């Protein structure tokens, strides 16, 4: 990691530690919007990380954004940084437009979304389901048939929903005339596609998961050292030690996969395999880490008043968002098939 990014990450860690009370039973950790943290992140200048400066972004690469997301995942931070920087910001900048300020979110249009060109703008009608953080977003970037439609808060009715961790996942009922100034076409050299969108969403989710898992592990390590049973700390039981080591291995593997995938996205043309693998491995890891963390914590970790749930409910929620293990292994399997005889090793190494 470059020193600049390392410093950035350290600053984000500091702000997160200050704004996210890990022991808090409700408030930010419970899926709610953490306005103070968002403001702090804007001040640090990471909310548009990886969006080119010429389009109003903060510059930097995906690797830097992923490093920040890992920290936010650790702190169960209630901010849509992934959606703002890696999705909406990417879509808008990819069209050569200037990204607006404030928190954003993004979605791919469902097939039922109906659009029609009218005099005053583009008529957009239909629903988009489970949009992350929509209720707090100033803008929603919708990728529809290759173009990017930027919706404002008044362009849709919103029905609140949540994921397993209580984070906002809202259904939008869109009924609006969107002026041409908010309907963008991707630049010729942009990589914008539905597939690329899903990949970036998955990678962002996997980065958050790596962070959440690291926190769950750290909580389990700390608890195992404190909690006594049969007259000694449970950390002295080999079964507990083996569980903790298994967790650490999974977390390390996921973290490395996420960061390697970010590197691939930053440096290579084809990062599909990398991104698919990163989300797949994160999904596999999530189940193992959440269940072992709870197993080590015993009943106490299973309660509302214990902070462990902030990490584990997120792991459970996120593994099914942006494609679960089966979905991404299906994608990888199709790549193996299309690679043809003798192609597996080239696919894995990215070298032909």
């Amino acid at each position, binding site marked *: *990691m470059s020193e600049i990014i390392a410093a950035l990450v350290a600053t984000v860690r500091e702000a997160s530690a200050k704004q996210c009370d890990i022991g808090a039973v409700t408030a930010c950790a419970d899926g709610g919007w953490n306005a103070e943290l968002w403001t702090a992140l804007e001040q640090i200048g990471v909310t548009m990380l990886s969006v080119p400066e010429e389009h109003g972004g903060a510059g930097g690469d995906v690797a830097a954004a992923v490093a920040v997301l890992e920290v936010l995942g650790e702190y169960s931070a209630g901010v849509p940084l992934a959606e703002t920087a890696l999705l909406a910001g990417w879509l808008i900048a990819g069209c050569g437009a200037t990204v607006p300020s404030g928190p954003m979110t993004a979605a791919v249009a469902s097939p039922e979304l109906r659009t029609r060109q009218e005099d005053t703008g583009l008529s957009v009608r239909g629903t988009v389901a489970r949009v992350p953080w929509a209720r707090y977003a100033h803008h929603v970037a919708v990728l529809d048939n290759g173009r990017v439609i930027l919706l404002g808060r008044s362009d849709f009715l919103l029905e609140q929903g949540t994921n397993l961790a209580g984070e906002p996942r809202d259904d939008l009922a869109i009924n609006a005339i969107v002026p041409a100034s908010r309907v963008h076409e991707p630049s010729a050299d942009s990589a914008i596609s539905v597939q690329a969108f899903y990949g970036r969403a998955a990678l962002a989710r996997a980065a958050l998961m790596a962070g959440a898992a*690291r926190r769950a*592990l*750290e909580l389990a*390590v700390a608890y195992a*050292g404190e909690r006594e049973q049969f007259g000694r700390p449970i*950390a*002295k039981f*080999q079964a*507990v*030690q*083996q569980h*903790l*080591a*298994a967790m*650490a*291995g*999974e977390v*390390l*593997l*996921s*973290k*490395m*996969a996420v*960061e*390697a995938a970010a*590197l*691939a996205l930053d440096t290579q043309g084809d990062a599909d*395999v*990398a991104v*698919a*693998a*990163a989300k*797949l*491995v994160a999904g*596999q890891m999530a189940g193992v880490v959440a269940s072992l963390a709870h197993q080590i914590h015993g009943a106490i970790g299973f309660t509302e008043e214990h902070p462990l749930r902030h990490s584990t409910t997120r792991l459970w929620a996120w593994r099914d968002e942006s494609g679960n*293990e*089966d979905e*991404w*292994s*299906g*994608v*990888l*399997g*199709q*790549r*193996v*098939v*299309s*690679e*043809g*005889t*003798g*192609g*597996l*090793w080239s*696919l*894995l*190494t990215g*070298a032909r």
Partner: protein
Amino acid sequence: MMDLWSLEPVALPAELDVLRRDVRAFLAKELSSGRIAANCDQWLGGWDHAFSLRLGERGWIGMAFPAQYGGSAAGALARFVVTEELLAAGAPVAAHWIADRQSGPGLLKFGTEEQKRAFLPRIARGECFFAAGMSEPDTGSDLASVRTRGRQVNGGWRLTGTKVWVSGAHRAHAMIALARTEPRTANRHAGLTQFIIELPDPDVHIRPIRLLTGEHHFNEVVLDEVFVPNARVLGEPGSGWHQVTSELAMERSGPERILSTFPLLAVAADHLAENGERSSASRVGAVVGRLWALRQLSLAVAGRLEAGAAPAVEAAAVKDLGTRFESVVIDTVRLLSQVVPDLGSNRPLPRMLAESILHSPGFTLRGGTNEILRGVVAKELGVR
């Protein structure tokens, strides 16, 4: 715990692509000409002296050695690329394996100038193979409990004891053996010394320990007052433990901890590409994705080695995850192909499946059991 989290991914430098292509082209020719055949777990089972010589000719053994010792000082990442290409192709690399991975680097780090000149160039040419005498009948993963004793005599040492699980000892040119040279004290790790025993030697008695398949790779090596001159002590007398454990990061994190069953997976993937159904594709995809990630992890550890660090804990994690994965490959291929494993089959899938299954117990035992490895990780976490 922080050390674990500071591991960073490695993007292989573009110049290694050339090296990789060279190795691939060479291997394609070797395979198509029938000079070698693809098999699983060939770093244990594939002893082929002639193949090792051909690799040596091309400079692909002992790559990390400086030029004056026959190498190209190519570094850990270049070695990673060559090694993973060889393993992925299922090439027979057992003959030079120990010399290339452990003994050579050990000699380079701890050996005398004379020792380096005597062995390294021959290792790099694929002419000199090593064995490693570590385990003993009662040690298992507890290396500090070795009972082989070294007694100082005129001009050198006399070694007596029994080593087991010494792979390739019956064909190697030398064995590096760990022995106790000072009485055991409270510090169990003190007083151990590494010796280079040149083979054959009339006082070294080598007997096969056959695998459950009947294959002969491992040996029991009985040292009966074997004389080792002072010039064949490796490193500092009494520092054997430190020297041995410093090899562990290298030994535990390499691509061989992930790829032992890759040739089987490749055959299954070919099958799939030719006539697979959707559900099988997804199951192969799950394995491929995990393998992609494991390779990145192994590569990241190689990056740390390249930078001169000794990432022992990360390496333990790689080996724990990787060796369990090697068996997952077997189960995945077995279940979705619904092929009955058959050592006697002339088709690659049933044969490789049979070989892999029968070799599988070794994956999570060799080089430290997975329970031991998790203990290493747990210690780093501060709970042991």
